[in-house]
């Protein structure tokens, strides 16, 4: 897997371009912004990690890209949202439904709630193939069994006719991957796909995703809070906090040379299994509530490097600090932050 992808890629190899994505949700107190001006591009064959605590907007960003935010309670705006050159903002609900599956597929944390308990696993894979690829009943069944085999489900022909409850958590997640893979999409969005699994099963699923990506050259957006998983699978990483990207970098430079205090805090808070650690460090306080963003830098109430200049005005801009590295921190030139080795 290549790990030297530049941050801004020439158009020919860019799968997805997102510019100034804004998502608002309707709360008791009116519209509140939960994703605030997110911009990034995703290269062909690239695995982009999005990390952050719960509520940072990482899942909402991806749901909005896939057109899966409920229309009445949410508003999605984007300057640019282009998939292989095609403008997604111009599409209506029905056209977006045609995009999901063949072009963008999603894998969620809870395979049990993504699979319909009343239909056999095989039916649910075959349905995607009939709906999007126009395959016949017979052809879709044969292809579904092939897919089950590819994702490592033993006895695929027998398992085709079984129901989700007859599968273990890891096997269900393999089924979800088979469904995502059914139409060989351009992008797979994986939202905490291994969080509910045992580490041994997680290792199998991550290996499977890697192999599939190598085979088909598809792009992957990988949402997780586990920095170990990020280090294992991603080429490049975006760090989100309170609805904004606060840092973006290639994998190694982010871990070795973080440029935002929030990322340093996340790295320092991870207990290391391979090391004896004294006291565990944590980032004090909690992320801000939706609709109650602090002035200035949104992280300033929890940041140990806060100065007067961080506490008022607009949020700092996302600045380029290296050819492939950006940060949203006013004090980055004067700070030396700790990374992992």
């Amino acid at each position, binding site marked *: 897997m290549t790990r030297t992808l530049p941050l801004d890629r020439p158009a020919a190899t860019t799968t997805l371009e997102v510019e100034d994505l804004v998502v608002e949700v309707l709360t008791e107190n009116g519209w509140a912004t939960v994703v605030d001006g997110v911009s990034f591009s995703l290269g062909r064959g690239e695995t982009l990690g999005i990390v952050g605590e719960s509520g940072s907007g990482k899942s909402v960003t991806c749901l909005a890209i896939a057109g899966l935010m409920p229309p009445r309670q949410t508003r999605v705006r984007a300057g640019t949202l282009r998939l292989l050159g095609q403008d997604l903002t111009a599409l209506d609900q029905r056209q977006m439904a045609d995009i999901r599956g063949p072009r963008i597929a999603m894998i969620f944390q809870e395979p049990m709630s993504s699979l319909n308990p009343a239909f056999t696993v095989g039916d649910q894979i075959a349905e995607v193939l009939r709906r999007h690829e126009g395959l016949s009943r017979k052809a879709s069944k044969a292809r579904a069994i092939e897919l089950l085999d590819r994702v490592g489900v033993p006895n695929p022909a027998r398992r085709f006719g079984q129901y989700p409850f007859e599968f*273990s958590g890891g096997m269900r997640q393999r089924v979800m991957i088979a469904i995502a893979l059914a139409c060989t999409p351009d992008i797979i969005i994986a939202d905490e796909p291994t969080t509910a699994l045992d*580490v041994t099963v997680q290792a199998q699923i991550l290996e499977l995703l890697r192999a599939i990506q190598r085979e088909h050259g598809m792009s992957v957006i990988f949402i997780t809070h586990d920095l170990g998983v990020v280090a294992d699978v991603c080429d490049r990483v975006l760090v989100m906090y309170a609805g904004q990207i606060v840092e973006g970098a290639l994998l190694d430079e982010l*871990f070795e040379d973080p440029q935002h205090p929030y990322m340093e805090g996340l790295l320092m808070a991870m207990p290391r299994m391979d090391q004896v650690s004294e006291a565990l460090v*944590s980032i004090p306080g909690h992320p801000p509530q939706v609709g109650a963003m602090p002035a200035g830098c949104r992280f300033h109430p929890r940041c140990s490097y806060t100065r007067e200049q961080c506490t008022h005005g607009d949020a700092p801009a996302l600045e380029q600090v290296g050819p492939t590295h950006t940060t949203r921190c006013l004090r980055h030139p004067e700070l030396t932050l700790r990374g992992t080795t």
Partner: protein
Amino acid sequence: MIETEPLLDVRDLQVTFSPRKKMFRERVSLRAVDGVSFQLYPGETVGLVGESGCGKSTTARGLMRLVEPSGGSVTLAGRELLGLPANKMRKARKDIQMVFQDPYSSLDPSMLVLDSIAEPIDVHLDLDRAQTVERVGALLQRVGLPAEYMYRYPHEFSGGQRQRITIARAIAADPKILVLDEAVSALDVSTQNQVIGLLEDLSRDADLTYLFIAHDLSVVRHISDRVAVMYLGQIVEHGDVDRVFDAPAHPYTEALLSAVPLPSPKVQRSRERIVLAGDPPDPSKVPPGCRFHTRCKYAMDVCRTVVPLPTPTIGSGEVTCHLHTSGPQLAGASVRELTTPHAAVVG
């Protein structure tokens, strides 16, 4: 080794379930816990790890008698718990309390925090109402929350705060042992670290002993003094936490540790990964011989037929694996010796 008497001594614990199989078919009994023995010494934290379904939670529930064990013995400060009548068992629970993973379902949503925390006080301590209220206030402060929170309901709190409340309730009657079953697993890393810090303070100040059950091995390494690794209802390896993590003696421990991705891209790329094939076998169909042989990359002929016995490991603890007694004869050394001949062995 610690020289004192164990506070809790679990010997050959068995928990058997008899699930209803399909109609007109024979009922198959399933040994979820099959001969588990370990000791908790005063003031120490013992970690219990393994994949889901390995029996670690059932071990905890069995020794608390929340499920009734079918055999073995559990002695708490010299007193046998198995077979105690219900009223005496309720009294014995003063000394051993449990904290579960989900603070949302372990607090009654219709009860004030005060009344939830007061329950164990009412059962175990002879206090009047004013003393109880005062004690609840002190307990809340002890877990890092304002005393006034006792007049609120659970829904008013975050996950981390709720877990602090359930810890306050667990320590309300001054127990000696806390059994923590995935107690920090549902929390964000920052909140998790704060709750772990609280648990460490409590064990130091209140001389608490912990059985810490978790699937997150990084957290287990941090908090535990000793660790036991379970597979299919049995402990396959135990020892001091650094020995087990740095020089695992059982191939299952080695595989489990290698599956945890480390938050360092360089280290992660250079590690050897052992991907265990398949899911753990069904506990109703335990393989003959060594239970792990179906997934073990070192499996020998003897492993398929003969049940291995525990042998001492170099450093501390025991391992139950034929590699140490027959074949390559590791004799208690780390299983990593087989792949990296010059691996450091903790002496």
